[in-house]
């Protein structure tokens, strides 16, 4: 990746479903401490009142990890987690917004909703990462990110615990990188 790309990205959106948690933990552990980017994780999960997932992620990084609340401000160098039972969208580059409408692909949060919204707000300053999962959520979002000039990374379906979701994206777009799940963290560190 060319040197002049450094600092170009302001937002990294990461989507995963079944079989993605382990990779997400690895990526979070590898996140650089000093980048200007913010990170958003959308993972399909059950609605549980206690933030077990937030605590799990917070244990892997020095960066602050927050589950997004209504109108939450976007601060660089922060890891945001989409809250269960809401769709997560971007109001603009400074704030999130939440939506409680219908599930998409049987999912709330839906990866497509967050990725498409991020693509519209951040354009070429966005990196989208789609990981292991058992449904088609995320591929339309990856397509929008790609169309708007963002950088797309799809987990190699052979390395994914459940290959359906990354494969759906690979059927729809030609991503900038197709990586083994274990390589995504260090790759990301290099381009941020």
């Amino acid at each position: 990746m060319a040197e002049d790309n450094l600092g170009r990205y302001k937002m990294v959106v990461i989507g995963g479903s079944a079989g993605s948690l382990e990779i997400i933990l690895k990526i979070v552990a590898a996140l650089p401490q000093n980048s200007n980017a913010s990170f958003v994780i959308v993972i399909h999960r059950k609605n549980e009142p206690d933030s077990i997932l937030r605590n799990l992620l917070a244990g892997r990084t020095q960066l602050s990890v927050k589950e997004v609340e209504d109108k939450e401000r976007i601060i660089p160098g922060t890891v945001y987690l989409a809250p269960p039972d809401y769709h997560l969208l971007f109001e603009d580059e400074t704030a999130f917004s939440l939506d409680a409408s219908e599930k998409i692909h049987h999912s709330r949060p839906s990866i497509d909703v967050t990725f498409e919204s991020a693509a519209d707000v951040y354009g070429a300053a966005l990196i989208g990462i789609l990981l292991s999962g058992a449904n088609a959520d995320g591929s339309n979002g990856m397509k929008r990110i790609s169309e708007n000039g963002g950088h797309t990374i799809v987990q190699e379906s052979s390395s994914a615990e459940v290959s359906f979701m990354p494969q759906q994206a690979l059927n729809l777009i030609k991503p900038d990188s197709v990586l083994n799940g274990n390589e995504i963290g260090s790759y990301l560190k290099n381009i941020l």
Partner: protein
Amino acid sequence: MIIDRFPSFAEFIYRVKSDSTYLTRLVEELTVNVTEMFRDPSLFKAIREQVLPVLGTHPFIRIWHAGCATGEEVYSMAILLEEANLLKKSLLYATDLNASVLENIKKGIFPLNQMKQYSENYILSGGKKDFSKYYTAKYEWAKFDEKLKSKMIVSTHNLVSDRSFNEFQMILCRNVLIYFDKNLQDKVLTLFDDSLEKLGFLVLGSKENLRFTSVAQKFQQLDVKEKIWRKII
């Protein structure tokens, strides 16, 4: 609107401006009407254990469900009140901007295929009974006990333009404020403040907060885990 296939945006605007029934339809299509029974069961458990014992000390209980959509939350609350033996002295005011969804509350009929989920939520909320005793199943639908409905007052109300219409001991407005910007949120929260008795309860959605709002100083959160505030001034 895509669904009505207008040939141009100008024609769409003309229709909205000239045809008031079409404006109503537009509002009905644009507003979000998704809800479920006992959504966030731990919240209902907190209401059961921490709020209803306080409300029970009043001779008469008035509760406002602001932005109630198709009414699942109102029926959930009626069940809680019934189980606390308080329904007989309660009135539940259910309001929404969208008149068409309110018809559903008056009917008390909900899709049968949701009942498994609602029954699980009910048990997690501390419910001890057999949830199916509250409804009669017929084909694809579950019709809820008339007794629950008998204490509901259903009406349209616009949170942005309509004023306070009563004084309540409790107001629930969950996942409505997320669609408003900060100024509008402050305006609506002032309306709630004006409509709540002193020491009344305000309940918001699980990711909504009174922090940083214009009424924050007047309310105290009951328990850090649940979005229930008590009016202290």
